[in-house]
């Protein structure tokens, strides 16, 4: 194998896949990236057996087709440091030689025939969405995904395609974020719980200003995402996502409209005095006033009032302030709408045209 690549494009294409190889593995060969040079261009492929990604570069001259393995960590670090416009990569005596400017670097390269082959994938349902829209949805929901062990298999995001609407749902059992987009598709219902890591890898691979279309293929145990020349296939999490629709309040006794910037600023201030053991800020709505209070036995207490626009009888409810701040950070609207009934059932926040957030209160207040 012998190639001459555009350095920038090489770096970008390699970065798409280089995060996938596991740092530690019982199969050391997985710590490599497979490079395949053919007449029509070069592709990179990496896998950790749970997900795999493929990227391609077209600004390349292949003088000798072939396949070679590059140690992911070292090659990624090396490529980042290269400065010249072009980079030559070739296989030589069981090594991979990278030449750029006056430098030549020989990396040990295991036998490529041992490397897993690319998984074959046939989608049962495939939908298309603007990559930009998908990424925004992901930003609005992924922070709510459980990072800790919980009793539900909710360490991933649910993609639920129903009646021409793609919903993305993240929850950790205490809060739930739901974003949706209407898609021109007459496909049947499809649903899958995708590991957060796969979506993070995808987000990193696709720049935010990307105008391309993302194709989402739902399979039985796998999911495929395709943008341009990038393809990512991930195993799905056990599909035991909780019945999320049931916990979204349909009606509420009070509806409150609150200035988003002011709310976030005030809440951050009050939250400083919420105790570390039980992060809690009390919200008390009466008339058109919101009073927020927090108390920490060894530090002190805080009280902050602000004007809101309320319909209904108001009441008290307590939240973990961090949960609400997380959502306000990605909120699209200037005025947040909150629907609540009392301090024992979830409150619903409308934070975007097609974005809602359900937050379970803290009891014992």
């Amino acid at each position, binding site marked *: 194998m012998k190639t001459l690549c555009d350095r920038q494009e090489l770096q970008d294409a390699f970065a798409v896949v280089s995060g996938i190889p596991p740092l530690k593995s019982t199969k050391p060969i997985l710590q490599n990236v497979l490079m395949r040079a053919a007449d029509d261009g070069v592709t990179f492929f990496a896998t950790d057996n749970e997900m795999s990604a493929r990227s391609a570069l077209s600004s390349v001259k292949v003088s000798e087709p072939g396949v070679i393995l590059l140690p992911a960590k070292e090659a990624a670090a090396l490529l980042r440091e290269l400065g010249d416009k072009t980079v030559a990569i070739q296989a030589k005596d069981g090594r991979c030689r990278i030449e750029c400017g006056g430098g030549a670097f020989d990396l040990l390269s295991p036998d490529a025939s041992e490397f897993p082959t690319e998984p074959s994938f046939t989608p049962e349902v495939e939908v298309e969405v603007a990559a930009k829209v998908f990424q925004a949805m992901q930003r609005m929901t992924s922070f709510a995904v459980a990072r800790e062990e919980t*009793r539900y298999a909710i360490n991933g995001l649910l993609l639920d395609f129903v009646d021409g609407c793609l919903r993305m749902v993240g929850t950790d059992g205490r*809060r739930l974020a739901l974003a949706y987009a209407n898609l021109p598709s007459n496909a049947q219902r499809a649903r899958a719980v995708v590991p957060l890591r796969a979506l993070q890898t995808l987000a990193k691979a696709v720049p935010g200003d990307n105008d391309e279309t993302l194709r989402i293929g739902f399979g039985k145990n796998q999911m495929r995402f395709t943008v341009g020349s990038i393809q990512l296939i991930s195993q799905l999490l056990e599909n035991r996502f909780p*019945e999320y629709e049931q916990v979204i309040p349909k009606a509420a006794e009070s509806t409150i409209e609150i200035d988003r910037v002011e709310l976030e600023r005030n809440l951050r201030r009050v939250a400083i005095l919420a105790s570390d053991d039980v992060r809690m800020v009390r919200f008390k709505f009466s008339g058109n006033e919101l009073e927020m209070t927090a108390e920490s036995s060894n530090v002190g207490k805080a009280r902050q009032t602000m004007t809101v626009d309320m319909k209904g009888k108001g009441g008290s409810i307590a939240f973990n302030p961090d949960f609400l701040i997380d959502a306000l950070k990605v909120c699209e609207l200037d005025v947040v709408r909150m629907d609540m009934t009392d301090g024992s059932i979830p409150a619903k926040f409308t934070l975007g045209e097609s974005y809602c957030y*359900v937050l*379970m209160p803290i009891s014992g207040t």
Partner: protein
Amino acid sequence: MRATLRRVSVRSILHADMDAFFAAVEQRDDPTLRGKPVIVGGLSRRGVVSTASYEARRFGVHSAMPTARARALCPLGVFLPPRMEAYAAVSATVQAIFGRFTPLVEPLSLDEAFLDVTASRALFGEGRAIAARIQREVRDATALSVSVGVAPCKFVAKVASDLRKPGGLVVVEPGDEAAFLAPLPVARLWGAGPVMQRRLDALGLRTIGDLAATSLESLTAAIGAAAADHFFALARGVDPREVVPDRDPLSIGRETTFQDDLVDDEAIDRVLRNLCESVAQRLRAEAKCARVVRVKLRFPPFLTHGCQTRVPAALDDELGLLRVARTLLAKGRPTGRPLRLLGVTAAELENRSASPRQLGLFDSPSEDPARVRRLTRAMDELRERFGDRVIRRGALGDAPDD
């Protein structure tokens, strides 16, 4: 010289017990409740009475009674849900008063504690004087009354504090313990549940005095050596248990080393279940719940691995613990790898008491923490009376053969 030595060797233990604590706090905070029968407890259909005021006790209401029954006995009573935060605040004030007299304070719950004032006597006078000061200072600071028992050991002090409630101060001098206990029923003995009471009754032993007068041999023959030694000593007022100041355990753990390395998943899971059960029981006994669960694995010969995780809501039940521990075990143990040791530890413990709790979006009624807690508490009480193997959760499988 002899007298001095004796003075040092005899302990002075106080047992202080707030009178009708929860109900008294309610009556203090709401003057319209004073003089009325006040019952604090779970108000739901299946709730139980936590505390009944003395006015309510005249109607036969007592703690641990189903609230429904209490309503029948005392229909005009004022029934209130507990305000644990308020009680905890008062409790902190009271505990602080105890702490003025000795560092050796062992709180048993929000409303009672043992104090070892043996070494404090040089500063504050005899046990009776300290007890009287505690009663006065508690009344001044909280407007509540506390009963205190003073004795050379924990058991007698506890019996004494209960004898003249409310506001009682009963002192049992060294040497008087057996005489003091003699007329009391055997049910007063620490560890004598209904079953043991029936067995003692069958032997004609009704009072503690009856038991002290019997021979240790005949008692051993009837109830076994361990129980006989225990009750025989208590009946004569001998209880060497120390007052252990409130130790705040950093973690609670259990581990088992296997005689032969275990490979079978089912067998390993069985051990895991027992460990979780045992840790959960300890957690509840200490009124703690855990924010972190840790699993320890040792592979032959000596390769030890630990994995842990934080849980979103603190745990004190075996099923919750088991769920997390299983996940950790699956992560930490490569399939089929033999195991030499398995351990489960609950860490980052917090007090269960009254702390506000994050509710869950998907909690189903059967997983309502209050209900789970009532069930596990009932199971713990059964185990305390009849032994560890009397009851276990179906989901945890059969008891280990041992």
